[in-house]
């Protein structure tokens, strides 16, 4: 009934698709961390209007389907004269989405730090920048690691949606091959397995980093 041997000749194509899935996802995570940082600063800053803007941003990207966001970036941007290649548009959409989540993760990480640690830093003469670099960031990164691992796994899975905007990543490749070979079950099953493999590795990497950074 199922003939998985039909997949074997197409494995290289699937692996190329997987590579572009990883490229899109990991770029979005990295860029999302940078933008998320800015959002975290806005959310915790002194300016009320900036806090409001950042809160609206987070609500929007947390509260609407990623597919809607993708299509908006893909079709609305060209309508106002900005045309991006599909791959760039996909990375942009995923980055904007991930930044909202990472901004929140960072914010909770910063707020978990006891105020006293910062008072001690100030009392001993550390500048605000030194306090940020040597006291806050190392601890925030450590405490956000589990949530960041989850977010990376989410983005890898959600990146399947960018197949809807003609990026030839793993999902899109599987769809194309499934329809040309009439073997949808086999190709989607293998695609699923590849996603699982990558997310499992991500999870293991996250746990390993956590255990390395753990102190008593």
């Amino acid at each position: 009934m199922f003939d998985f041997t039909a997949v074997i000749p197409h494995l290289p194509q699937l692996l190329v698709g997987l590579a572009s899935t990883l490229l899109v996802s990991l770029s979005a995570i990295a860029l999302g961390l940078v933008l998320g940082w800015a959002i975290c600063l806005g959310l915790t800053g002194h300016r009320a209007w900036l806090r409001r803007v950042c809160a609206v941003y987070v609500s929007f990207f947390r509260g609407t389907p990623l597919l809607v966001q993708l299509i908006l970036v893909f079709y609305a941007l060209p309508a106002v004269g900005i045309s991006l290649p599909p791959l760039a548009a996909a990375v942009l959409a995923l980055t904007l989405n991930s930044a909202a989540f990472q901004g929140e993760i960072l914010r909770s990480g910063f707020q978990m730090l006891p105020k006293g640690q910062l008072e001690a830093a100030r009392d001993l003469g550390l500048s605000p920048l030194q306090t940020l670099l040597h006291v806050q960031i190392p601890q925030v990164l450590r405490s956000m690691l589990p949530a960041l691992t989850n977010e990376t796994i989410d983005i890898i899975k959600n990146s399947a949606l960018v197949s809807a905007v003609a990026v030839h990543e793993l999902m899109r490749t599987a769809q194309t091959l499934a329809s040309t070979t009439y073997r949808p079950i086999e190709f989607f099953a293998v695609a699923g397995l590849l996603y699982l493999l990558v997310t499992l590795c991500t999870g293991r990497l996250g746990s390993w980093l956590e255990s390395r950074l753990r102190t008593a």
Partner: protein
Amino acid sequence: MSQPYAIEIRNLHKHYGAHHVLKGIDLDIRPGEVVSIIGGSGSGKSTLLRCVNFLEEYTGGEVLVNGRMIGYGSSVTGEPYRLPEQTIRESLTDVCMVFQQFNLWPHMRVLDNVAAPLRLVKGVRKAEAYERAQAQLERVGMGHKAASYPGQLSGGQQQRVAIARALTMQPSIMLFDEPTSALDPELVGEVLNVIRDLAHAGMTLAIVTHEMGFAARVSDKVVFLAEGRIEEQGAPRELFNTPQSARLQQFLTSWNERQGSLAMA
């Protein structure tokens, strides 16, 4: 040039919104003097201490450390204005605080906790910073725990590390904000011993504490705060044996009763 006073506090006020916490405090502390600040909870004693190193921004009056005004300057017209953060930090290099909650940085080893400020603030080379940090850890009896993380230590040990961290910055004045209040009773002694040694070594100390016995033994002067004012101050012998104000009599009576009930238990 030596100043007559290490700390001068003139008509100090602190408001939190409508809440008036400090209502005009005047207090002088001479170099080498050990002053204990006692009082009930909410009397403003911690706030007073925190105004000295500007962790609280006072809203009226003056605080001078070694003759230098803390936190504010005055313009040509005599209007006070808030000094830049960096200037405030520089004016407080002679003051270090030890906190109730120790406030060590949990992601750094003990040795790094002590050496980091030296390297970052004073630009001391790594090897020398470690050497000086180790020396201060030995001084408080914590040299053997240099490689541990704060979370692996008891409260008393953490507080001694925090004291070493402050000492490494070579302040002439140390502020202690209820240094033993977060400790299990059996760990209080080891911290008090370290503070007593500092007092004997001639450091200027201001100590907010509930340890009356310790305050009586180690202080040159005891200050009793009630509702944001200094109700009474003097040598510990007079203050504890012949309290003048009703409030202090009441405070000492309730403290003695609590000690008594502990002794019975």
